[in-house]
């Protein structure tokens, strides 16, 4: 199912983001990466756009673009998805969490 097919009040988890290059990237940069919990807050009175809540922030996108965002109902096992996001193997995914390194001043 995709984000445009959700009902108001539903909580879903992003599984995949499709779409044209730069816009898909922008959606992900705004937090819509696979594994993210999304709450559908509302729909504009004329039926478009949708209002979403993710990572504690509001985001409104049009139905046409929401159709490209595949979701599954519920909060999902986000760790698994996040690991999948980074590489296809869990060992690569684990890299991300430990990824911060810093130069000593």
């Amino acid at each position, binding site marked *: 199912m995709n984000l445009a097919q959700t009902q108001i009040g539903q909580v879903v988890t992003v599984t995949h983001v499709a779409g044209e290059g*730069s816009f898909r990237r*922008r959606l*992900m940069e705004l937090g819509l990466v696979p594994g993210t919990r999304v709450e559908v807050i509302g729909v504009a009175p004329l039926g478009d756009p949708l209002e979403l809540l993710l990572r*504690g922030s509001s*985001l409104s996108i049009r139905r046409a673009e929401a159709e490209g965002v595949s979701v599954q109902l519920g909060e999902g096992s986000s760790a698994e998805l996040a690991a999948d996001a980074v*590489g296809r193997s869990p060992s690569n995914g684990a890299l991300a969490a430990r990824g*911060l390194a*810093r130069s000593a*001043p």
Partner: protein
Amino acid sequence: MTQHEHTALSEREASVAQDTQRTPLCLLIGNPNTGKTTLFNRLTGQNARIGNYPGITVERRSGDLTLNAGGAERVVEVVDVPGAYSLSARSAEEQIALSAVLGWAENPRPDLCIVVVDAGQLARNLYLVTQLLELDVKVVVALNMIDEVRDNPPNAGELSRFLGVPCVATDARHGTGMSELQRAIGAALAHPERAALRIAYPPALEADLTRVSAALPSAWRESTARERALALWALTSIEQDDELQGVDPALRARCLEVRAQAGARDIDREVIATRYALIDAELPKLYPRLESHPKKRKTSERVDRVLLHPVFGFVIFIGLMLLMFQSLFSWSDPAIRLIEACTSLSANFVEAHVPESILRDLLTRGVIGGVGNVVVFLPQILLLFFCIGILEDSGYMARVAFLMDRIMKALGLHGRAFVPMLSGFACAVPAILATRTMERQRDRLLTMLVVPLMTCSARLPVYTLIIAALFPPSRVFGWLPVQGLLMIAMYLFSTFITLISAGVLGRTAVKGRRVPLILELPPYRMPSLSGTLSMMWRRAVMFLKEAGSGILVFTILLWALLSFPRPAHVDQPPPPVASSQHVPSPIEQSYGGRLGKAIEPALKPLGFDWKIGVGLIGAFAAREVFVSTLGLVYGIDDADENTTPLRDKIRQERRADGSPAYSPLMGLSLMVFFALSCQCMSTLMVVYRETRAIRWPLFMFGYMTTLAYAASLLVYQGGRLLGF
């Protein structure tokens, strides 16, 4: 697995740090809706200098901040960078943030980036911060709007530890944390060291980065950290058809090659998900408790249940918009009348004290009239920006876009175009200035090009004169007044044409890439009066400075066109003549009058004679000037739309064969012409100032005049064929 890496300062930067003579430059950067501009006003005391970024018409605001470090005062320049969610870019407009941060493309090189983050939305806001830290630039974080998360405040110390840069909790609206922020800025400027963030990406991506790094131009390789960050930027920004500027062809080719060879791997997702994974892992340490649905959002959602309600939402929306429109249309009237009265008082004063001469006419009709032509826009500009300030500040403007997006999308316009479009019914000049509330240049341009088609208040005197002179005050079905119906029809007609034109122009002349809507509905906030007032002031000053001189010059040129050459015997009393005999008025012999006669053959098919032609020329000063110019043609001084002699002259005007020269059909044709033509040099001047390109006002004049001519021709010739 953790890699420690010492970031070596390049020699050049070390010398910059030591150079105390130079005014240090700080950038204020952050996501939209983080209170960046409020913070800017707090820091700089609203002494903003407004310009444009090099090579692009995006507003660049800068101001001076005086730091008080240990008794010694130090002035720092602060630049308010347009809000951005990310540094990755696909257009020159989105590239501004990166160019400003790195001092590219003729931008001065900044010494410090002050990143403003919304304390209630750290996850999304920190994304930009990680990008900046990867770039190896000096950063101070302002943890802003801290007052809105009192029940669950993020820990500034913990954030500072995580990012390795100073973080200061602030509340720019109320001025909390300003001295702490200033101290942090002073300390960061004095401290030459900084720490770059190195995020470990999946090995395959790291390999890609190495390959892209090898293709970076030498100017992009200042430090190992920056080289890597720019390789990342290039890999996630460069596309087959992007509109980026200054990208080296070899780098472009390499990025496209690497992306093509990635196969099933998803490079964008690898980059973005890794950054978010890093942020997500840290969030539990930053907030006392993790909330997926923060309290301040819940309050706003309750308000939205009413304001975005399918019925009440629209009722309130229409009510608010009517109120705004009413204020522009009616409440500005006393101020406009006062300005007009002052203008004519000054002109009378000069006329009483200066002997009659060309110079006196130049002073009264050219200079004083011209200044009046400029100042007369101020009441509507101030009122409109007051309304916009309140709408933006309260968070309702985003709801306007949200409510109207469905309709505006169909026209190819942005939801935020609604307010400028509505303002166009009052006056195109403030409406065009108001297009700045839109982020994209293409959206601004399209809105600017169609706004002058809306029936502005300057068209009303023209319609009033024509309707009163040429249409009988009869009623349809015994009760509907014809004259009132005509007026309403003109409004509907102009709205219809505006919407059609937006649809057509958006697919042709300003065909931009289809950009999907990304809207954020910020929490409702109490609007700040001082912020709104300062914005009104800035807009007004900017209008006077930028468009004022141009409007003045054009008023003088028009005056000259309609005043020279002067008739030889002005003082000679007009000989008593029969009404059929023609007495040339001074305006008829002027260049403008001759021009009117010269274009008569072109105007004839529309039903206009040379007198109307002269009126059309005069109307360039402002549409309502048509009335007084036509009055001058008929030898009536100071005519307005309610002047009976002028109406009578129009009714009595005869052709050579004795038939009435002006029929109701010609009146309709003339009104259609006025509805669509661009008879307003102030509009053209403001469009030129806003686009900084002469081709857009020329295009606007061209398309509107063509449209007006074609429509009038259709009305007049069609009407004649139908036997009117």
